[in-house]
């Protein structure tokens, strides 16, 4: 589900150490904090899963 979802990242304006994962789905823009690995790098696989979970939660709960 949501196989075509991809994300980009950006650093927060006010808290530059915080990284957002950003994506658009059906004309709605989303941001959710990325998942970092043990070395502090963005874990792309885990972050993509988090994005999909967030999107699924929003859609299934009509939010």
């Amino acid at each position: 589900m949501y196989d075509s979802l991809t994300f980009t990242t950006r650093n927060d304006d006010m808290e530059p150490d915080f990284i957002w994962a950003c994506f658009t789905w059906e004309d709605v823009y989303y941001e959710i904090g990325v998942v970092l690995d043990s070395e502090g790098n963005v874990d792309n696989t885990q972050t993509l899963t988090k994005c999909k979970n967030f999107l699924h939660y929003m859609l299934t709960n009509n939010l």
Partner: protein
Amino acid sequence: MALQTSGQISLNDIHVEAGGASVSGTACNINEADIRGLISASSGAAMDFADWYGASASQDFTTVKSGHTFHTYTGGRGTTQYGFAIGFNSPAANTGGGTPPSGSLSYTGDIVVSGTTLGTIQMMAHYGDGNGRTSIKFEIQGTNTNSGFTTINFNNSGTNGVNATFNRTSFGYTYANGKRTYLYAGVTRFTSADSPANTYVWGGSGSATSSFILGPTTGNSNGTGTESNFSATVTFA
């Protein structure tokens, strides 16, 4: 952050409070709208630097009145279950029925934090998803900018002991049609220390969530209405 409440205070201190750190050291005068706006002074009015003691650019809206729905419905195995939702225009209680409640906010203007305008609040809700999880959701009518505040505090300590602060970065963010939506989702439950005695049970099977942040303390009955028996403050900073 509010200005100090005593001691020496400079025009630059006031300017930074009104306009944010980026204006530090830049030219200004005491009659500028944002500076006198901190103390709600009209243009040309007589002002004393002591007038700015404790002044803050943060706009708090207080004594929020929320709506609610409370209803019964037939659940699994024919049991009678109870649905409850509360918040400012919060979502419908659940699939069991219920009209999304509506209420009123005591502050309906733009929320301005340290000189940054966030927009107007369209919704402020705390509710359960029926799976034993609670969520906090609020919506701001404004531009697509996930910025402008660092934390949001929900304080209902006067009635049920809740005083919880959340970082903006702990929320998920969405934007569509001029509306910024923040969602703190999937919380199992707040700590017991935050949980008041009069929490509201979501469903009858033990999957309880509570609506305490903007919730009333007493007086609910079947139907939909606007609360009159509670108060809470929500503060952006």
